């Protein structure tokens, strides 16, 4: 697989072209803005947290394919999940992204399990080999983190 195909996997391109959960939520849903000052990407995460569950999430904003796909994949992964589950996915995702430049050893059962548990999100694992693009992939997640803290 070429570098580019490893970065821009089909799932990523699909979520970029057809982003899920695009749009806004009216108050009392929370609204959190995230910026990547290096490239000018910006997005807004709207969260409806009811009884400790993310009942609804919507995202608006503009950015590169990686940041847009990552935010779309994230919205699917966290919608309907409890806050504890969301925090666990957040931690796993950020961990996957901080393996900068290191090739994840997929023969290690532990890594395989983590990636499998991430489901479609694992498609973003290729981004970790492109250090400057990690910020693109993590923008939505950091904004979600911030939104949860404010909630």
């Amino acid at each position, binding site marked *: 697989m070429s570098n580019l195909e490893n970065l*821009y996997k089909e799932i990523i391109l699909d979520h970029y072209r057809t982003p899920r959960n695009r749009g806004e939520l009216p108050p009392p849903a929370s609204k959190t803005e995230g910026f990547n000052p290096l490239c000018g990407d910006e997005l807004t995460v709207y969260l409806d947290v009811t009884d400790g569950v993310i009942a609804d999430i919507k995202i608006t904003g*503009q950015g590169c394919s990686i940041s847009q796909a990552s935010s779309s994949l994230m919205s699917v992964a966290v919608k309907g999940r409890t806050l504890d589950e969301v925090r666990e996915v957040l931690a796993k995702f950020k961990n996957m992204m901080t393996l900068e430049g290191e090739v994840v050893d997929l023969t290690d059962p532990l890594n395989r399990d983590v990636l499998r548990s991430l489901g479609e999100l694992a498609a973003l694992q290729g981004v970790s080999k492109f250090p400057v693009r990690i910020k693109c992939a993590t923008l939505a997640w950091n904004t979600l983190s911030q939104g949860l803290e404010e909630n």
Partner: protein
Amino acid sequence: MSYFNAVRVREDIPALTRIINGRPITYLDSGASTLPPRSVIEAMDTYYRLRHANVHRGVYQTANEATDAYEGAREAVAQFLNAPGGAEGVVFTKNCTESFNLLAKSWGVANLRDGDVVLISEMEHHANIVPWFQLRESVDLEVRFIPVDDNFELDLTNIDELLRGVKLLSLTAMSNVLGTINPVKSLARLAHEHGALVAIDASQSVGHLPIDLVDLDVDFMMFSGHKMLGPTGIGVFWTRPEILNAMPPFLGGGGMIADVRLDGYTPATGFTRFEAGTPMIAEAVGLHAAVRYLEGLGMANIEAHDRELTVDAISRLNDQFDGRVRIIGPAAHAERGGVLSLDVEGVHPHDIAQVLDEIGVCVRPGHHCAKPLMKKFNLAATARASFGPYSLPSDTDALLEGLQRAITFFG
């Protein structure tokens, strides 16, 4: 054809021997930083190997050599710019941004009062915006903007109105985003008629167009060495010696003083007053070599070479992509330099740059430190390709190939 041989220039640039992802490097990011020729690298190397000593202090031979080399660079820069007052008005800084901070925080603090106006333009780099905003924290200053029109040029319709009450016109000679070359000379004359001083950001132009400070008749000029084939870590601030001598010190410390006592200090005069601490000696030596190299090529020849590449690239971009790739900058026939900001419909500049990197093409995605300008044209970012004296039409070939790939890939 150009009046110098860009293929020969390439042989002088070691960085162009790199192979990136299996392809020879295609360097199209000279707007961000130019690649130094061997003579620059070797001058710095020789300095460190054989002549290194601190300047302006020792009496031994190598210390004298280091001082001569450092001051020789100042002399070379002054001649290169045809600076009125010669080397006396040349201050070495870290980069163009520091030069702007010197302007705002020394001249600005001493001369700008509540109600005064600094006129800049919408196409300025953050380096010529933020220091003025910072100054506003202590002085009730108006920062006024010359608008940019839909042809990506300065809208000078109301220039007389805009210049009213202006103490300083601070303007880029060439936009680092649009490539627009501004009519600096005529605007300087007009600004002077309104009693304003004129500062010019020459970062984008200094390595690409001839500069003659006597002819331009401006009052300040600033640029970075690494945008004119020199090293990073050195910039130039130039002003008329009479203005310089009336400016208060900026950074304090060793080297910039005439006397220090228990009850205070007396600053040195002239450029020395603004060069606190051990200066960037090796970088000055490198900059001197860069000046010699550019003089060898001839700035008018470089300008013609840039123009030829730019006209060719614009026409091929328009032909091949039929509007899908929009050039955010003036048309080919306008006054413009070799900076091509591209907006590809449906593909984000970051993704463009990533696909281009795959075939070894270096362009810059982003807002290019000019966010007000980007916002004006409703763009978060562009992918910018920019030429240097070592660029060839084959670099444009690689750019077009990469753009086609990106468009195919992202659909």
